[in-house]
């Protein structure tokens, strides 16, 4: 790829970017949120048209104007967003766009055969005739990978393939990447998990603000240098020091035999003021469900929740907010923000009643003042309180979600994958904020699929399996192996 | 079981007959009066009536006829919604051996044969309305028609209306002819617009009373009540009230009840083995403030 440029309204996403990839090579593409990684690769895969620049494959200049063209040229991409048709089965998704036919009709047995071969090749077991909506996130990700490989791609782009995978699944993915490499395929690998690069990358290209900053062999590129190049400055240590919890610290969140069939049955959890509790587990372990039940997002069937020793009857998010519970969801675009609304309107949404004057009108000036205060406090990078949230980068959006909860009086914060898909700099800021909140006496429960994050950020860690807390670890005694072993259960 | 109705009739001419009636638009006052006429006459002969509403829908009317055939009624009365389209339904009834009569609106289709058609003479009725208009506006001026030109009987009315003007008061001219679909709210807004562009308008002929009453509402807003002559058609209770109050000039009045009675009479004749005339005409009269005084 040579001299690629792409502008969106108001944003120069890419400017004069050049990139090369050899066969049997893994090129890692890293950069902050909004650096232009996905945009660049979408252009390669025909999902987006470039404003300028050219693409050469095997030394020949090619024009990639549609996904189909890219496919013919041997380019396949595993997209960052979920890109399957939920109602279709794994097999149907696999052959989508390239269905085998016989005499003009779909040939289902040929499709099944093709799928079977791919799944065998990848050594994965997959129910062939179940709509993918019913598969786990990990399985869905594998279907996407299989789909790309089934097209016999020679150049494979993986845009944050591990963001939704658990450790074992990641291991299997890495093994697969090794095999593909051995088969002479060229792979572009995008990830925010820098520790992964050492495992699989041959070279690393760093993108910042739509420009290539540097490309080097991975071995010649230590992690802290990568981070520095990404953000353009030196960064502090990854995880902040956890403040100690006072012996006398009272229990703030007290969950007693909470039930919500079929996943959660008789869950007990106590979190003290200033404490950060981490929940670790495999995908589908029920971590999100636990948080949702506490936050009233799903109605629990039984049990009780006490906040500061008082029973809080929680049947809806409204009750939970009233009781001082804030729920930072795992999917900020789908569940956390109204993308078409301004920063101000998002920040005040959960506490709007406080901004209503006696004449029943919303006091916009007061809203704006509060929002500005949060922008300053959390260092939210937005031109104004009136900017639409959809125009902000991922990390900034996550801060807006936080601001939404912090303008109220929160006693309990439930963080579900608080740093998913955001860059290192933003991550560090979120960690610092969490610690600050804990210091001010809040109780925090955090779910994350990045084990180091849970280990680094929590006073206490629970391994979660089947909607239950199967084992507890103190911060000091928790090792990745022990936690994973407990989370995976006897089967692992 | 496939005996023709001819033979069934002679077996029991005196009663027990079932007559299926499909009315194009049962919600109209006119058809309700017609239905009442049919009912009272049918009661006299001991026939039972099954009246359904085609709801201004060709396809629905077609399927209603098919349902009548399934039920093996002894005769079918239709007021077609669409004089062309009704042919196939009539033909189907013919094939099933069920005699068909039309009331108010005739079939113009080549398909199918109808025993008898009973209706007002709408050309004559339109002529009556034209006469009223001439009397109301005097020797000259411009008048408008609130029209619904898709309907055959309305076409006849308008023809008669224009003929009357040409014959009786040739200096009264039709300056606008707008299609308001026979609906009150559309007639109201179309008339409002008309009054803006034709300020010297002297009279309005509404092809039915919904059109006339819609025009009246617009005239009211324009402050022209009494200054502009509104002539309607059908003399529904609301129109009669307006005429009595001097807000409308007059109406052509049909006698739908008579149409209903004469339709059943024709069927009775047919059941009795006689041949009623192909077309039975019921005359159209007029209704003005003078009549209103008389009836009150």
């Amino acid at each position: 790829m040579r001299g690629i440029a792409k502008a969106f309204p108001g944003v120069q996403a890419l400017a004069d970017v050049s990139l090369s990839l050899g066969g049997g090579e893994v090129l890692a593409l890293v950069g902050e949120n909004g650096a232009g990684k996905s945009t660049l690769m979408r252009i390669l895969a025909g999902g987006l048209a470039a404003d300028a620049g050219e693409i050469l494959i095997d030394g020949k200049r090619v024009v990639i104007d549609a996904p189909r063209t890219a496919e013919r040229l041997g380019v396949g991409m595993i997209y960052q967003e979920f890109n399957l048709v939920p109602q279709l089965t794994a097999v149907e998704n696999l052959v989508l766009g390239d269905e085998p036919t016989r005499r003009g009709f779909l040939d289902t047995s040929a499709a099944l055969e093709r799928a079977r071969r791919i799944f065998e090749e990848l050594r994965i077991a997959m129910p062939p005739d179940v709509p993918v909506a019913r598969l786990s996130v990990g399985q869905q990700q594998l279907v996407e990978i299989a789909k790309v490989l089934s097209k016999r791609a020679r150049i494979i782009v993986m845009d944050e393939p591990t963001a939704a995978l658990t450790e074992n699944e990641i291991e299997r993915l890495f093994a697969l990447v090794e095999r593909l490499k051995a088969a002479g395929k060229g792979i572009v690998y995008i990830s925010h998990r820098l520790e992964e690069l050492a495992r699989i990358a041959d070279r690393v290209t760093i993108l910042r603000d739509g420009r290539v900053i540097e490309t080097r062999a991975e071995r010649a590129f230590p992690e802290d240098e990568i981070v520095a190049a990404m953000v353009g400055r030196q960064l502090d240590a990854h995880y902040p020091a956890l403040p100690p919890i006072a012996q006398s610290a009272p229990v703030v969140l007290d969950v007693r035999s909470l039930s919500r069939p079929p996943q959660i049955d008789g869950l007990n959890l106590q979190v003290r003021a200033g404490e950060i509790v981490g929940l670790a587990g495999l995908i589908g372990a029920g971590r999100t469900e636990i948080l949702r039940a506490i936050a009233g997002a799903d109605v629990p069937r039984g049990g009780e929740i006490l906040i500061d020793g008082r029973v809080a009857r929680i049947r809806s998010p409204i009750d939970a907010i009233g009781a001082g519970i804030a729920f930072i969801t795992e999917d900020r675009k789908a569940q956390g923000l109204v993308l078409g609304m301004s920063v101000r309107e998002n920040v005040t949404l959960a506490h709007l009643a406080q901004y209503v004057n006696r004449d029943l009108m919303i006091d916009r000036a007061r809203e704006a003042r509060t929002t500005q205060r949060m922008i300053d406090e959390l260092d939210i990078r937005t031109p104004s309180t009136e900017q639409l949230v959809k125009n902000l980068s991922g990390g900034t959006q996550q801060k807006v979600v936080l601001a939404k909860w912090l303008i109220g009086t929160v006693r309990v914060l439930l963080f579900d994958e608080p740093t998913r898909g955001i860059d290192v700099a933003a991550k560090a800021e979120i960690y610092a904020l969490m610690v600050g909140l804990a210091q001010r006496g809040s109780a925090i429960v955090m779910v994350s699929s990045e084990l180091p994050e849970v280990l680094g950020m929590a006073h206490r860690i629970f391994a979660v399996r089947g909607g239950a807390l199967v084992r507890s670890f103190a911060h000091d005694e928790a090792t990745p192996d022990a936690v994973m072993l407990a989370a995976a259960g006897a089967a692992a | 079981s496939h005996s023709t109705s001819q033979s069934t009739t002679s077996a029991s001419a005196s009663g027990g007959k079932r007559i299926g009636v499909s009315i194009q638009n049962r919600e109209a006052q006119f058809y309700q009066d017609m239905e009442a006429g049919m009912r009272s006459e049918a009661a006299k002969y001991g026939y039972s009536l099954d009246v359904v509403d085609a709801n201004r829908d060709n396809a629905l009317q077609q399927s209603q006829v098919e349902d009548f055939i399934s039920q093996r009624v002894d005769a079918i009365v239709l007021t077609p919604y669409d004089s062309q389209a009704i042919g196939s339904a009539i033909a189907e009834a013919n094939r099933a051996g069920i005699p068909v009569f039309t009331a108010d609106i005739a079939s113009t289709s080549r398909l199918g044969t109808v025993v008898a058609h009973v209706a007002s003479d709408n050309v004559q009725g339109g002529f009556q309305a034209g006469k009223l208009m001439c009397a109301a506006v005097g020797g000259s001026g411009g008048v408008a028609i609130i029209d619904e030109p898709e309907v055959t009987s309305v076409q006849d009315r308008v023809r008669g209306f224009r003929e009357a003007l040409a014959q009786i008061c040739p200096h009264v001219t039709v300056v606008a002819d707008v299609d308001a679909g026979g609906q009150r709210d559309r007639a109201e807004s179309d008339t409002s617009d008309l009054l803006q562009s034709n300020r010297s308008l002297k009279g309005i002929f509404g092809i039915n009373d919904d059109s006339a009453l819609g025009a009246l509402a617009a005239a009211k807003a324009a402050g022209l009540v009494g200054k502009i002559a509104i002539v309607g058609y059908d003399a529904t209770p609301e129109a009669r009230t307006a005429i009595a109050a001097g807000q409308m000039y007059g109406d052509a009045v049909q006698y739908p009840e008579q149409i209903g009675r004469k339709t059943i009479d024709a069927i009775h004749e047919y059941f009795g083995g006689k041949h009623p005339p192909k077309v039975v005409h019921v005359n159209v009269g007029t209704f003005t403030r003078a009549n209103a005084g008389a009836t009150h």
Partner: protein
Amino acid sequence: MTAGARQPVKISWLRIIAAATVFVAFIAAIDVAAHGAFLSRGNIASVLSQISYDFILAIGETFVIITAGIDLSIGSLVSLCGVVMAIVANSLHLSGFLLIAVTLVSGLAVGALAGYVNALPVVKLNLPPFITTLAMMQIALGASYMLSHGRPVALVSPAFGNLGYGGFFGGLTGLLHVQGNLFPIVWMLVVGLFFSTLLTRTRFGRYVLAIGGNEEASRLAGVDVARAKTLVYVISGVCAAIVGFLYMALFSSGSPQTGTGNEMLAAIAAVVVGGTSLMGGRGTIVGTFFGALLIGSLNNAMNLLHVDSYLQMVVLGAVILLAVALDELRKRYL
């Protein structure tokens, strides 16, 4: 979706200015062609009173559409509420203002109840509003015909017939030197202002916009989604009842056929031409007003220019398409 909208305040002003410019040019041209009849004081009043019905209907529809819903039942509800009010009015032994007030309240109650019933399956069963309101459209119309036996119910009391002519309105007409019925215009202004304020300035309005933008995020932020959505359909029913009342007053009778023409589609067209997104999350009452005004003036102008009524249908369809397409192009390239 993808094309990033800029600051909402600016956008809506841009939209309004653009619409106004097109509008003025259009007006001037028509007026010349119609020999001055278009911009006469009387005609302006007449257009305004004609659009008031569709605009009031479209107000309720705007709320519904902003939540990404749709209400197909409004036309039938105009019919049903009109008939019910006429029956109630005729059976009451009241007169004057009291009669009018009680009648109006009964109609509003019917409209609100129907809206509530519309909302129930949407909120409880998550059924698509297209279907629930389609069913209500049938049910309400059937009920309206049953209650009225298919005939217009003429009002016995003369109280309604004089609404808009005597007293306050009579004075107003004199003051403004216009002929015409100012009654619906005043209603349109009052109802429009009220609901515009409700949408833009209150908590409920903010919630309506938020729900249309992202229902799940709103729910998790503590918005009572079920209540807001229910209210939205109730508002739509209430607006239909008001229109039913105005038509009843206009014709001095409640007719089951009133409202069953293309009122519903005209109202939806006004909403969409006015810039409210059918995907939800975006829309204003002011925009809807301009939408209704555009469609209403177009109809009026074509009547003044004696355009064939069949051709009018074609032009109206083309203009609706054009308006929406231009809005989309403006969003992309401006």
